[in-house]
C-alpha cells in the first residue's frame, strides 16, 4: 500500500459530473418516451420501442471500437508512445464490448418479435457477432501481463486490424442480401421517414449514450492509470527489498 499523500478519493471531475448529469437527463427521456410517450409504428407496432435502445447501443459500440483504433494509432505513431493513449484504447474497448453485447441481446429479442426467431446467420448478425468476439480477444490479449508498454504494443496491432471490421459490419446490409433493415437515419439519400417525437427520442438515445460513453471511458482509463501506478509501486518496493537482502 502506498503511504504517500492521498487527499483526493474517486475519479470524478467537474467535467465528468456534467457528462453524468446530461446522460441521466437524456436517458431518462429515452426510458419514459420510449416506453410511454412515443407512438406505435405503422408496421412493427410496439416492437419499434426496442429501436430507442438498440440503435444507440450499436452506435456506441462502433464509436468505442473506432476510438480504440484511433487511440492505438496515436500510441503507435507518437514519438513518446504515451501510455495514456493505450489506456483510452483499453477503456473504450471494454465499454464497446459491453454495448455490443447489449446490441446483440436487444436485437435478438427484437428479431424474435419481427422475424420469429432469436438468431439467423444473416450477414449483419454474423459480422456483428464476429466483431464482438474479436474485441473479446483484444481484451484477453490486454490481460496477458507484462509491462504497460508491452501491453500497449501487442494490443495496438490487434486494435488497428480489428477496426477494419466496422465498415464490413455497417455495409453488410448493402453488400449482401440481408434480413436486417438498411439504415433509416443515416440513409444515403438523407430522407428520414420517421415521426418527429420518434426521431427526437432516438436522437436523445444517441446523445445520452454518447455522453455516458465519455463518462465511462474517462473513469475507466483513470482506474487503469491507478492500477498501473500501483503495479509500478509494488515492483519498486520488491526491487528495493531484494537489493537490501543482497546487501545484508
Amino acid at each position, binding site marked *: 500500500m502506498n503511504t504517500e499523500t492521498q487527499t483526493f*478519493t474517486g475519479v470524478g471531475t467537474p467535467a465528468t459530473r456534467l457528462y453524468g448529469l446530461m446522460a441521466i437527463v437524456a436517458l431518462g427521456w429515452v426510458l419514459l418516451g420510449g416506453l410511454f410517450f412515443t407512438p406505435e409504428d405503422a408496421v412493427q407496432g410496439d416492437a419499434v420501442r426496442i429501436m430507442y435502445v438498440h440503435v444507440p447501443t450499436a452506435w456506441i459500440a462502433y464509436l468505442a471500437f473506432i476510438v480504440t483504433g484511433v487511440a492505438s494509432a496515436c500510441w503507435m505513431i507518437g514519438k513518446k508512445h504515451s501510455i495514456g493513449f493505450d489506456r483510452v484504447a483499453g477503456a473504450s474497448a471494454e465499454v464497446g464490448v459491453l454495448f455490443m453485447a447489449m446490441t446483440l441481446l436487444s436485437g435478438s429479442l427484437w428479431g424474435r418479435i419481427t422475424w420469429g426467431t432469436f438468431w439467423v446467420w444473416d450477414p449483419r448478425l454474423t459480422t456483428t457477432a464476429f466483431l464482438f468476439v474479436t474485441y473479446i480477444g483484444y481484451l484477453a490479449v490486454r490481460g496477458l501481463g507484462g509491462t504497460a508498454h508491452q501491453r500497449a504494443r501487442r494490443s495496438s496491432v490487434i486494435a488497428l486490424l480489428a477496426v477494419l471490421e466496422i465498415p464490413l459490419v455497417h455495409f453488410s446490409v448493402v453488400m449482401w442480401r440481408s434480413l436486417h433493415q438498411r439504415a433509416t437515419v443515416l440513409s444515403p439519400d438523407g430522407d428520414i421517414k420517421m415521426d418527429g417525437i420518434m426521431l427526437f427520442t432516438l436522437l436523445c438515445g444517441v446523445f445520452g449514450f454518447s455522453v455516458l460513453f465519455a463518462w465511462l471511458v474517462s473513469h475507466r482509463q*483513470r482506474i487503469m492509470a491507478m492500477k498501473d501506478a500501483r503495479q509500478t509501486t509494488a515492483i519498486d518496493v520488491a526491487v528495493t527489498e531484494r537489493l537490501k537482502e543482497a546487501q545484508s
Partner: protein
Amino acid sequence: MNHAGFIIAVYGITFGVIIGLVVYTIRQGRNLSRTVADKDKPWT
C-alpha cells in the same frame, strides 16, 4: 402494449447493465484512489 415482455426485458437489461457498470466503476475508482498517492492522479 403488445410484446410487453420482450420490450421490458430489453429496457431492463440495458438500463440494469448500465447502472451496474456505473456503480461498479465509481466504487472501483474510490477503492483504488485510497491506495494510490495524489501524484499518480493527474486529474486531481
